[in-house]
C-alpha cells in the first residue's frame, strides 16, 4: 500500500471566541489548511470532524455549510481528548485504503468554562463525599503515585509548566505567551496537591486542521513541503485492576505508542521532537516514561537535565503544550500534529527544532469510566 502524506496543516490562535460558533472556528482552520496545501474545498473527497462537545450536532457538515456544501461524506468524531487524533487517524485510514485521495481532518471546540466534568446522574453529588472526580485531582493523584515510587518532587512537576510556558512565548498562536518562573508556578493557586493553577492546562476555544492525501496526489502537488505519516495508533484502556477508580494514563498510552513505533519501524531514540498530552504538569512527567523518552523512574531527572526543552536532546511541547498554548479538547489532537508538521518543514520560526526529521504527537482522553490514547509518528518527506 502507498503512503499517506500531510500537505496542509494550520490552526487558529487559541483563546476565547465568545462571538463565534465552533463551526466558524473549524471553518477558519479548514480554510487555513486548504490554503496551506494550495487546494480548495472542491478538491476534498471526505471530511473527518472532531469535537468532544459538538460532534452530535454534526459539526463537520456545519463547517461545510461555512466553506462550501459540495456533498462529500463527512464523519463526526467524539472521543474525549483524543477526538482530534481519532479524526486524523480515520482520515489516514480512509486514504490508506485507496478509496480517497484527499481528506480533511478538522477539530474545533468551544470548551465549557471552569472545571470540566461534574456530577452526572441522580442522587447526591459524589464530589467531596467520595473523593474527587475533578480532572486536576485525578492527575494529581496519578502524579503522587510517581512521587511516591520514584521521589519525583513538586519542583520537578512545576518545571514542566515553567518550560512549556517559556516555549509558548515563541508561539504567536498560543493562548498564553508569558514566562512563568518557578517561584510563580509554585506560588499560584493550589488546585489539588501537587498541582497549582499554572500546572493545569489552559481552558480555551480553538480549531486546527490537516489535509491528508494519497501518495499519487502528493507527487502531483510536489513533495517539497510534504510530511509522511509513518505511524498511526489508537488504543482503548486495557483491563487494569484499579481501572477506572484510579485514572490510568500509563497502560493505554504505552499500548498506543508501542503500536505506533512498530508500524513506523522506529523507536524513541529516533525522534527529534514530541508533542505530548500535558493536560497537567504531572501528566508530562508520566508520559516521558510512557513514550520511552527515558527509563521508568527517570522522568524527574529528564526534566531537570533540560533535555526536553527547546535546544535539548528531545524537545517536548515546544508549541507551549496544553498548559500554555491551550487545550480546546476536540481540536487538541490535530493541533499537536500541526506543530510537528511545521517543524518537519522547517517553518516553526523562533521555536524551530533544528534539523527535525521525525516527530511524535500523543494525546490521552478519558471520561470517568474509560480511557483512550492516540499516537502519530510523522516524517519529513
Amino acid at each position, binding site marked *: 500500500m502507498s503512503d499517506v502524506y500531510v500537505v496542509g496543516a494550520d490552526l487558529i490562535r487559541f483563546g476565547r471566541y465568545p462571538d463565534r460558533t465552533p463551526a466558524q472556528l473549524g471553518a477558519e482552520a479548514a480554510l487555513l489548511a486548504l490554503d496551506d496545501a494550495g487546494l480548495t474545498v472542491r478538491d476534498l473527497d471526505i471530511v473527518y470532524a472532531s469535537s468532544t462537545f459538538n460532534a452530535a450536532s454534526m459539526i463537520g457538515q456545519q463547517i461545510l455549510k461555512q466553506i462550501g456544501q459540495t456533498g462529500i461524506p463527512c464523519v463526526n468524531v467524539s472521543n474525549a481528548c483524543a477526538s482530534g487524533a481519532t479524526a486524523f487517524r480515520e482520515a489516514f485510514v480512509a486514504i490508506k485504503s485507496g478509496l480517497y485521495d484527499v481528506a480533511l481532518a478538522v477539530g474545533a471546540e468551544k470548551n465549557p468554562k471552569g*472545571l470540566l466534568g461534574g456530577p452526572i446522574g441522580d*442522587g447526591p453529588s459524589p464530589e*467531596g*463525599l467520595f473523593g474527587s472526580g475533578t480532572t486536576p485531582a485525578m492527575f494529581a493523584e496519578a502524579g503522587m*503515585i510517581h512521587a511516591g515510587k520514584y521521589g519525583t518532587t513538586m519542583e520537578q512537576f512545576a518545571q514542566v509548566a515553567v518550560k512549556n510556558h517559556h516555549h509558548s512565548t515563541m508561539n504567536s498562536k498560543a493562548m498564553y505567551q508569558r514566562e512563568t518562573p518557578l517561584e510563580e508556578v509554585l506560588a499560584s493557586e493550589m488546585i*489539588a496537591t501537587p498541582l497549582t493553577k499554572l500546572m493545569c492546562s489552559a481552558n480555551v476555544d480553538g480549531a486546527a486542521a490537516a489535509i491528508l492525501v494519497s501518495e499519487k496526489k502528493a507527487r502531483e502537488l510536489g513533495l517539497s513541503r510534504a510530511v509522511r505519516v509513518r505511524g498511526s495508533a489508537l488504543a482503548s484502556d486495557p483491563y487494569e485492576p484499579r481501572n*477506572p477508580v*484510579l485514572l490510568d494514563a500509563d497502560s493505554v498510552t504505552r499500548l498506543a505508542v508501542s503500536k505506533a513505533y512498530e508500524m513506523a519501524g522506529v523507536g524513541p531514540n529516533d525522534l527529534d521532537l514530541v508533542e505530548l498530552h500535558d493536560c497537567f504538569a504531572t501528566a508530562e512527567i508520566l508520559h516521558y516514561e510512557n513514550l520511552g523518552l527515558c527509563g521508568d523512574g527517570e522522568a524527574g531527572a529528564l526534566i531537570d537535565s533540560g533535555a526536553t526543552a527547546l535546544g535539548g536532546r528531545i524537545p517536548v511541547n515546544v508549541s507551549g503544550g496544553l498548559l500554555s498554548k491551550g487545550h480546546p479538547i476536540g481540536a487538541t489532537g490535530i493541533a499537536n500534529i500541526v506543530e510537528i508538521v511545521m517543524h518537519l518543514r522547517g517553518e516553526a520560526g523562533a521555536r524551530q527544532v533544528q534539523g527535525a526529521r521525525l516527530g511524535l504527537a500523543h494525546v490521552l482522553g478519558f471520561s470517568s469510566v474509560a480511557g483512550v490514547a492516540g499516537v502519530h509518528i510523522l516524517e519529513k518527506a
Partner: protein
Amino acid sequence: MAETGEPSIEGFRCADCGAIMIDQPMACRACTSRTPPQAFRVGERGRIVTWSTVLRSFPGVKTPFVSAIVDLDDGLTLKGTVRGVDPESLGVGLPVSLVFDDAGGARAPDGAPYVGFHFVKAGAAE
C-alpha cells in the same frame, strides 16, 4: 450497597481468571469469560495508594478535602474522602478503615436516606 440493614460494599470477581472489578459487566473485562464476575463482600480495611488535597472543586463543593485511592485488603480499589487526618501525615501504604456514613445527609426524592462512606486512619475513633 444495601439501602437497609447493615451496609456493606460489594466487589465482583471473575471465577475464571480471578480479576476483580467495581461493577458487574456482562463478561469478564480481563479474560473475556462469558461467565459474569460474581459479587463478593469486601471488608473494611485497606491501604492508601495515592491521594491529593483538593482545594478547588466544582462550584458549591466545600473544600479543602482529601481525596484518596485505597486498595482494600480483599482486592477491590475504591476512591473516597479521607477524614480527620493531617494531609502531611498521609503516605503510600498507610492503613485506613472504611466508615459508612449518611452521604452528607442527602435524601432521595422519596425522602429515603442514602448510605455513603469515607476513610479514616486505621485505629482512629470515628
